[in-house]
């Protein structure tokens, strides 16, 4: 759709600009200021140049957190994307089941993130949790997410998959529903198997929504904070300390404003790069690859 060129449209955007600028630009400038100073207290600061950047860029714990973060986001995508598509394929297309399925599936998405953590604490505790106790006593597999890093990872992954696969499933479902019936009819007439129908019709037609699902899941898992904070607090050791958890530890708990500022900027720029890729991908979808 051709848009009307009109610079006065800025007036309509102005309130949004002001409110987001207030919440984004001022804090960002503050973080820039922090990142070049050693701050002892209000108005007591020494200019240190790029020292904090040098320190944070060489910080082994930050590297570990970053790789952990990439591993986590990668695993999230590898598990959630196929699973979400499978669920979407299995969901009914019409009838009373649709509403029921949609509401049930969307339920985890509306639970506050810390409640998600709480649910999974209660569910996986080795003494009182159905999952933890079940693993330990029924299957005889020792399981304790508070003591063993692998168990903690399994728990965080389970929680994440439980929490966010519905988003992928709902997006994929919406994409599937948008495919005109004629495509399925043509496939039947051409004698296509269920697998070829999926491969040559459903998957290509879902490409748009799946791109969005992929990017959203990547971004959101990259920013994950509340759930592992509640569930494991980043432990045991630092085994589930993701970037946000580490940043909060430095900036809010230790109140190291300088390194925290430098860290924030590094984190932000990484996210900015992915956002840019995200945006470009969306633009492409908008330009003619629509379902």
């Amino acid at each position, binding site marked *: 759709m051709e848009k009307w060129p009109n610079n006065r449209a800025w007036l309509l955007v102005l309130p949004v600009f002001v409110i987001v600028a207030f919440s984004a630009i001022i804090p960002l400038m503050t973080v820039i200021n922090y990142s070049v100073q050693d701050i002892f207290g209000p108005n007591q600061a020494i200019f240190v140049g790029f020292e904090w950047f040098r320190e944070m860029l060489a910080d082994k714990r930050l590297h570990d957190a970053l790789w952990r973060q990439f591993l986590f986001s990668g695993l999230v995508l590898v598990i959630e994307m196929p699973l979400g598509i499978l669920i979407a394929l299995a969901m009914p297309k019409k009838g009373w089941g649709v509403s029921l399925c949609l509401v049930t599936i969307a339920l985890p998405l509306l639970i506050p993130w810390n409640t998600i953590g709480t649910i999974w604490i209660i569910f996986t505790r080795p003494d009182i949790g159905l999952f933890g106790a079940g693993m330990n006593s029924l299957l005889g597999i020792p399981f304790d997410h508070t003591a063993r890093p692998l168990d903690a990872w399994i728990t965080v992954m389970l929680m994440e998959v439980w929490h966010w696969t519905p988003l992928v499933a709902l997006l994929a479902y919406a994409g599937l529903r948008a495919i005109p019936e004629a495509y399925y009819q043509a496939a*039947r*007439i051409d*004698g296509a198997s269920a697998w070829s129908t999926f491969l*040559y019709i459903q998957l290509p037609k879902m490409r748009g929504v799946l791109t969005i699902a992929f990017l959203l899941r990547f971004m959101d898992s990259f920013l994950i904070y509340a759930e592992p904070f509640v569930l494991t607090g980043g432990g045991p050791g630092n085994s589930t300390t993701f970037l946000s958890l580490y940043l909060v530890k430095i900036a809010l708990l230790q109140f190291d404003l300088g390194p925290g500022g430098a860290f924030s900027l590094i984190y932000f720029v990484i996210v900015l790069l992915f956002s840019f890729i995200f945006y470009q991908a969306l633009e492409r979808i908008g330009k003619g690859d629509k379902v």
Partner: protein
Amino acid sequence: MARIELNEVAHSYLPKPVKDSDYALKRIHNVWEDGAACALLGPSGCGKTTLLNIVSGLLIPSKGRVLYDGKEVTALPPEKRNIAQVFQFPVLYDTMSVYNNLAFPLRNRGIHEKAVRERVLEIADILDLTDFLKKRAAGLAADAKQKISLGRGLVRSDVAAILFDEPLTVIDPQLKWHLRRKLKEIHEKLKLTFIYVTHDQVEALTFADQVAVMFEGEIVQIGSPQELFENPEHRFVGYFIGSPGMNFLECTLEGNRAHVNGTEILLDETTAEKSRNKKGNLALGIRPMYLGVHPNPGGDRVKADIRMVEDQGNYRIVTLKLGKHTLKASLSEERPIPEKEAWLSFPTEWTRLFADGWLIK
């Protein structure tokens, strides 16, 4: 190639149809001969697509049987029926090349790759698609896409019939004509049974040897374009075919004269004879091109007021008022048209009578 027979077919989308109006298709009993080019013509919502889906096997009818060459196929799924279908908008496998699109139905049937290649090249040649074979199907123009959809049906050597569901809807007007001619040419070359669904009478009448007109879930008439034009068996056919449609005048009968609010119109002796013992509402019908318009009275002419004259190029359409009825007449451009009033003549050989909507014959 096959002869397609529909035996007392009816279909309802409701699980338990009771009333007549629950049925999307009321009663279809019809045969399409092998190698025929047939059209199904009717307004939107008359059940054309439902009927087509029953023929292709995408729908199983609530009642009745479908036979291909005398063999019952009613419950067979589309992939077992050897038919092909071209949909309203092009249905393609966008990620594949044109070649792979055309090869897809053959590969699914486990045909040897060498045979696939031969056949695809042959069909691509017929459809003028050879130059595009390596291109991605998604990037082509609508008419090329529609040709690919058709090609996916043609590649199968065993295909019994090809069904078209308003295939020209998304094609630009100037290409429509071209594609329609291509279809006709392919039909002549391959002698396949073509069933062509449309709501456009021009498309139906130019494409098909035999046109079935559908109305509210029923086939009201099957015939050649000429038959449909000259002897519409139902008021709907008369009204739907021809531009403008047939004129209808509610009338009563007295001897061999029809009374239309006060004026008398002379009828053919045999028609009047048959009509005399018919019950129900009678109506007189005449095609605009047969309605005589004269500047002066005489014979059995009837006086009417002229309301409007539209110039359509080599003919003109005159809108007339006869009592409370509005009539249209089409006149060739040389014929003079009187100013305000005209005297109409109803040639008996072209004047038809309808009882409760159906032609009296």
